[in-house]
């Protein structure tokens, strides 16, 4: 391809999607800012140190990280036009993502049962909003993986399917990056000895 400034159609699509991801960054930035402001406003309720279990969150983090890795391997397989391997790695990504989501929902459920739901304090409201928004993105990603698995089955690794897989990969890696900051700012900062 020439080095001209004319962008190929496909690269326009990835650039457009990339810009969407950047705006999503801004959405998360506002939620992070809200959380950072409200994290000490516990209104007599528990603070992060009392309710977060670090080993549990570390497990979630590592599972999501592995899923980001398997997603990358799926894309590499797709580039080799190996549909079987692509589907295998995407299934692995889906399973890991589903385990992550299940662990998160379980954590939310336990908090609510103990009476530490989003109504308890401003800290918990902002916590549920930030982490819940990430969870909603993961849910969308899981749906997307399901749709793509079906498309690989029916259409094979056509140009269109390849383009969608590339975007899916960007989305999934992006969600892992957002989680690094949730892990650090919400959970590690929250558990810091003070």
């Amino acid at each position, binding site marked *: *391809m020439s080095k001209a400034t004319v962008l190929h159609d496909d690269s326009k699509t990835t650039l457009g999607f990339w810009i969407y991801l950047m705006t999503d960054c*801004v959405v998360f930035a506002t939620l992070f800012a809200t959380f950072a402001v409200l994290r000490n406003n516990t209104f007599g309720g528990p603070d992060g140190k009392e309710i977060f279990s670090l080993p549990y969150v570390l497990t979630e983090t590592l599972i999501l990280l*592995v899923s980001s890795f398997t997603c*990358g*391997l799926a894309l590499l397989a797709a*580039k080799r036009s190996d549909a079987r391997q692509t589907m295998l790695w995407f299934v692995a990504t889906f399973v890991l993502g589903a385990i992550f989501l299940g662990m998160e929902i379980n954590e939310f459920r336990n908090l609510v049962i103990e009476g530490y739901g989003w109504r308890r304090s401003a800290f918990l409201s902002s916590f549920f909003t930030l982490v819940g928004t990430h969870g909603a993105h993961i849910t969308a990603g899981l749906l997307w993986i399901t749709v793509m698995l079906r498309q690989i089955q029916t259409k094979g690794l056509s140009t269109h399917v390849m383009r969608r897989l590339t975007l899916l990969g960007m989305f999934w890696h992006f969600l*892992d990056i957002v989680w690094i900051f949730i892990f650090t700012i919400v959970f590690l900062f929250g558990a810091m000895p003070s």
Partner: protein
Amino acid sequence: MSTTHDEHKATRSTYVIGFTLSVLLTLIAYVLVSQALLYGWALMLTLAGLAVWQLCVQLFYFLHIGSEQKPRFNTLALLFAVMVVVIVVFGTLWIMKNLDYHDMTPQETNTYIQEEEAIRR
């Protein structure tokens, strides 16, 4: 582009390197907190540094930022987003901290100043 035309740059080894580095950085951050190896601001800054480091690792090895052909629209969009994020987050913290400060009772102001200046009561 980030992932379509420079795909030859994404190989199994770049993913393995990115993954290994990410796991290491996560574990270091975790051990620093769980073993209480650092305290206060030093710990906070170290953790923030590790997170930003991992951000760069994943951007480079997973999303292949910076290896696209010129013009680097992806990198430009990223830099703009970083600027907006920094303004939103630090601007919010600054304004809210300032608001908090001016909303204190005289007693609270006293306590705050004593704590900030490390004056023993």
